[in-house]
């Protein structure tokens, strides 16, 4: 029973349902004219997703996953789909992944991307970009020093020259610079 409810496809469908339901509820706080379109869209949307959620629950998520696999096989025609194909070469084995729960391996890249945003927010683009590049390429991907440094410098150069001088688009400087270095 738990497997039927707690698998990915089912949870995601449930998320959709909540979204539509929420939209409907909020729509009623607006005046009649403003709520019209949102309701016309969300109510059928809710109905559709409820139906789909029922399907997912019934099949325990297998419906989605099986169909997806079938479709990819049919399209690529090689019995191999580009999304789940095992990667070649040294990359997968060598990459230093973050300690995330086995059930949620995607947390690793999520955290890296979030980390990038946090870095930018604190340090500003000019510093965060090269820093992130270095951390990712050297620490996560475990590339060599030469490559890491070249890419880091390139990242810094793009921020400095392309955005700073050529386009003259001021890039966010980070709260540290804003609060303390003005």
């Amino acid at each position, binding site marked *: 029973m738990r497997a039927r409810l707690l698998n990915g496809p089912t949870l995601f469908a449930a998320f*959709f349902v909540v979204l*539509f339901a929420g939209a409907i509820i909020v729509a009623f706080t607006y005046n009649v004219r403003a709520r019209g*379109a949102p309701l016309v*869209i969300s109510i059928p*949307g809710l109905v559709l997703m409820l139906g789909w959620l029922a399907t997912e629950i019934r099949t325990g998520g297998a419906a989605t996953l099986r169909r997806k696999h079938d479709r990819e096989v049919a*399209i690529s025609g090689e019995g191999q789909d580009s999304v789940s194909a095992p990667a070649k070469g040294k990359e997968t084995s060598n990459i230093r992944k973050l300690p995330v729960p086995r059930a949620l391996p995607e947390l690793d890249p999520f955290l890296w991307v979030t980390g990038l945003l946090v870095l930018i927010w604190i340090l500003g683009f000019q510093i965060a970009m090269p820093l992130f590049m270095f951390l990712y390429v050297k620490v996560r991907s475990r590339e060599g020093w030469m490559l890491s440094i070249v890419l880091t410098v390139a*990242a810094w150069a793009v921020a400095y020259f392309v955005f700073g001088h050529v386009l003259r*688009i001021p890039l966010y400087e980070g709260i540290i610079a804003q609060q303390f270095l003005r």
Partner: protein
Amino acid sequence: MVEASLQGLAAVFVWPNFGLMILGALIGMTVGFIPGIGGNFFLAMMIPFVFGMNPYAAFALLLGGHAVVHTGGAISALLFNTPGTGPNAATCFDGYPLVKKGQTGRAMGVAMTASAVGGVFGAAVMIGVIPIVRPIVMAFGPPEFFMMIMVGIACIAFLGGSTPVKGLAVGALGLLLSMVGQDPSTGVVRYGFGLLDLWGGVNQVLVVIGLFAISEMINLALKGGSIADQMAAKVSGGLTTGMLDVFRHWWLNLRCAVIGVVIGLIPGLGGEAAGFLAYGHAVQSSKTPEKFGTGMIEGLLAPESAHNSKEGGALVTTVAFGVPGSSGMAILLGAFLILGITPGPKMMTEHLPLVFNMAWTIAIANIFGAAVGLALANQMAKLTYLRGSILVPLVLLFAILGGYGVRNSMFDLVIVLFFGVVGYYMKKYDYPPAPLIMGLVLGKMAETNLNMAMDLYGVEFIFRPITFVLLLVILFIVGLPLVKATRAAFGKRGVTSAGTTA
């Protein structure tokens, strides 16, 4: 007329006009390539140089660049799933999957050629359409806009792939998302939750960057490998195959170019919609709609053609009326003033060679831009074979810069991140992303126009001639497959079939 046309053409090749056009095209493509900054930025950047130039030279520079912005944007869309400009989002739908299959060369061939063909078509039509532009623009008002957009929305139904329910639900979500922000008819800020940054709505470029680029990078980071994983597929050919593809599908190309011109011509629809409406049309008119999103050639060439042809259309209205068809045109209008030219009916009489020159410039710049793209294609394609461990941070930074560049806003990056995560799961659980974008682009426009139509004419707006015809088109588009499906279902009653029909 012919004389003026030849005069206009000759002026293109005069130095320095020619050099300026080349320069403009190169800069325009580069600006288009960089996500987050697009055509308007290019024009705003170039306007200061126009002071004191003669009109032919000025337009060589401005139009040379403006014409190819989307061509540059297509390159980043194809290679990194990061649209260089807003309309290039549609390029990502079927372009990137092609690249993933290792068919980068072919994809570039298709995209560049379709862009060139569309752009040239738009320029050619520009001349032919000028005499009749006024009645056309006068005939289209909010009721007609509403119906046209509904045609596009109806096409969303076809994007569901193997599970129409999911496609429709995602489309509904997209439509809902477009409602975020201040409603012009009522002033109410919907789904804003007190956040000022959401007043203007959720920007489509941000959603696409998140949904397509970021989610793809997350995938790559997780699974390793490179963008183009299947080396075997390169057998299906490269550039030339792609170029020939466009001519193989010439009829679709033509229809999409027409769609682009019409949308560009008629202000009030917003040029953004052109690529998406063309894409919707390609899906709906195809025999295998469920394959879209996996790398269908038609899906790539349709938007590319439309967004280059729309520039020709927009220029006509701007020149003939003095009313800009898009925000980019509004900036261009400023250039007219600087050069001392008043757009409007007078241009046809006083400056006819210049008008032809503008059309020729757009056409030739398009061809040039496409040529540059094609020349670089092979080298660019190599990037897609770079290993993910290096490519991921590169594209991430590229995409994040783009997301920031849209409005100089850090908040926008949160939106990008959110859709990156959502996009990852959507891909994992087989929800098609294209309907989301289409709904997002088309939703609010449809609602606003509906409100305006009702305010202006009441419910009778449906009976205006063009509106009514479009309504019939929608019924036909939606009705035909339904009828077929019902017939098939009834015909096979009692016989269980292995496959499922739509």
